[in-house]
């Protein structure tokens, strides 16, 4: 069974912007998938539809066999971790509490009022922190860490959810090269050792080639490339980052896609 099944998904925002024009994809478990594409291509929109942060205007998303809809939203999100470009930690809470927020979906609202968690949750939090190498910062306020450290806390929060999928929206776009590689190594390791599928939006072609098992190229809301890193030749990259031309041309099957499947 595919980890994520995206079926003819479209997204038109309230202001009329069509960000995604009917994309269908299957994401296999345990794979490191990179979504690549120019700014405004609809990468974030696509990724955010995979855990219901945006609702598709048409089509459906199925995660591990569960159709994503209003009723199943929390249940699905529980097994889908998300890592953000801006980390999205709660700055005033300490690192451990931030990691433990990954357990909230498993706790009742009343149980979480006093910031009390079960021993089991604390062990999970501890493990997640150890995994990202930040046990020594457990009681430090999250906004006092460096960007790279904050992103590792973000990953620990996702890990604490015991997810089957981790979505990462440009996880390294605000980091320097060294911290970027640390974070991507971490995600890759999680993917390989824990069998968690990782779907990451990236800007950098280099990183995509190095870390991805599969690369999906997106331009103007459509898939224009889908294949292994080897198939991502320089010509394909150039085609991928080309400005979208007239709408008639875009409706044709793009050459890059044909090339990748050849």
């Amino acid at each position, binding site marked *: 069974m595919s980890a994520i099944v995206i079926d003819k998904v479209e997204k038109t925002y309230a202001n009329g912007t069509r960000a995604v024009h009917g994309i269908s994809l299957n994401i296999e478990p345990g794979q490191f998938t990179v979504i690549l594409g120019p700014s405004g291509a609809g990468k974030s929109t696509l990724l955010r539809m995979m855990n219901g942060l945006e609702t598709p205007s048409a089509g459906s998303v199925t995660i591990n066999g569960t159709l994503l809809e209003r009723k199943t939203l929390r249940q699905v999100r529980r097994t889908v971790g998300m890592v953000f470009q801006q980390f999205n930690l709660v700055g005033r809470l300490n690192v*451990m509490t931030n990691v433990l927020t990954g357990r909230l979906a498993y706790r009742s609202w009343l149980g979480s009022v006093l910031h009390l968690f079960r*021993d*089991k949750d604390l*062990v999970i939090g*501890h*493990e997640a*922190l*150890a995994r990202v190498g930040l*046990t*020594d910062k*457990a*009681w430090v306020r999250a906004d006092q860490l460096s960007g790279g450290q904050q992103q590792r806390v973000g990953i620990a929060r996702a890990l604490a959810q015991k997810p089957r999928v981790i979505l990462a929206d440009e996880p390294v776009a605000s980091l320097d090269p060294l911290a970027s590689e640390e974070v991507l190594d971490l995600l890759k390791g999680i993917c390989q050792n824990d069998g968690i599928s990782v779907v990451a939006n990236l800007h950098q072609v280099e990183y995509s080639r190095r870390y991805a098992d599969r690369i999906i190229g997106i331009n103007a809301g459509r898939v224009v490339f889908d294949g292994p890193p080897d198939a991502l030749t320089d010509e394909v990259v150039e085609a991928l980052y080309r400005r979208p031309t007239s709408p008639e041309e875009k409706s044709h099957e793009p050459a890059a896609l044909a090339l990748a499947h050849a």
Partner: protein
Amino acid sequence: MALETTNLPPLPPKPRNLFPLWASAIVGLAWMMGVQLDISPKTLIYGWEDILEYFSRYSSPDFSQAPGYVVLMLQTMAMGLWGTVLAFVLGFFLAPFAARNLSPNAWTYNLAREALNFMRAMPDVLLALVLISAGLGLGPQAGALALGIHTAGFLGKFFAESLERVDKGSYEALDAVGAGFSQKLMYAGWPSILREMSGYTLYILDRNIRTAAVLGLVGAGGIGIALYDTLRMFNYSQSAALLIVLVITIMVLDRMSNFIRSKLQ
């Protein structure tokens, strides 16, 4: 469930969380105060029906004298306006001396700050009482003066703080061309804080109109005097009408000043 963490790097010692201590200290203190003041929420719980019955007496407002109330309300608003203008003028002249970076010397600074502090510390109701008994007599004039003196303390302090926050460079540039105290104020100080000033002044106007409504209780005119009289004579339907006029006016003013403030930003 295995709670094995021995193979993980240990967590550093957890810092002591003082929150429960503080929380219980505050609750304990509040409890003691409640006991000392002889406060029994029981009065509220057992007297629930009495209280409801009491408030139900206000349920049939009598608007037969509404035009008179409207005039009183206008008088109240006028009192608030005059008080605010007075406060603005006083604050305008005192604030520069109370701003650390502008005040000519330490003496004027301390003097101005203490003066503003004293004006803030005197409740306007007390000032109105004193002015009335001291010779101004009953009427809105004493109320407007009292509001003006009290809120000049606030406006002066707000203005002074804004003047202190103005970018140092603006003042230095004028120092460099040899500008004097008043020139620095007129060309760097006030122009830089115009927006903040108008925000504060509107806020004080709003506050003064609310407060003007109660100055009548001590004889300083406006709608408060009528409210006090009708409440004292247990004339609930008249009181209700007065309260409604008051509440509606103030809620409308609240909306208006919110609107103007949002336009200012």
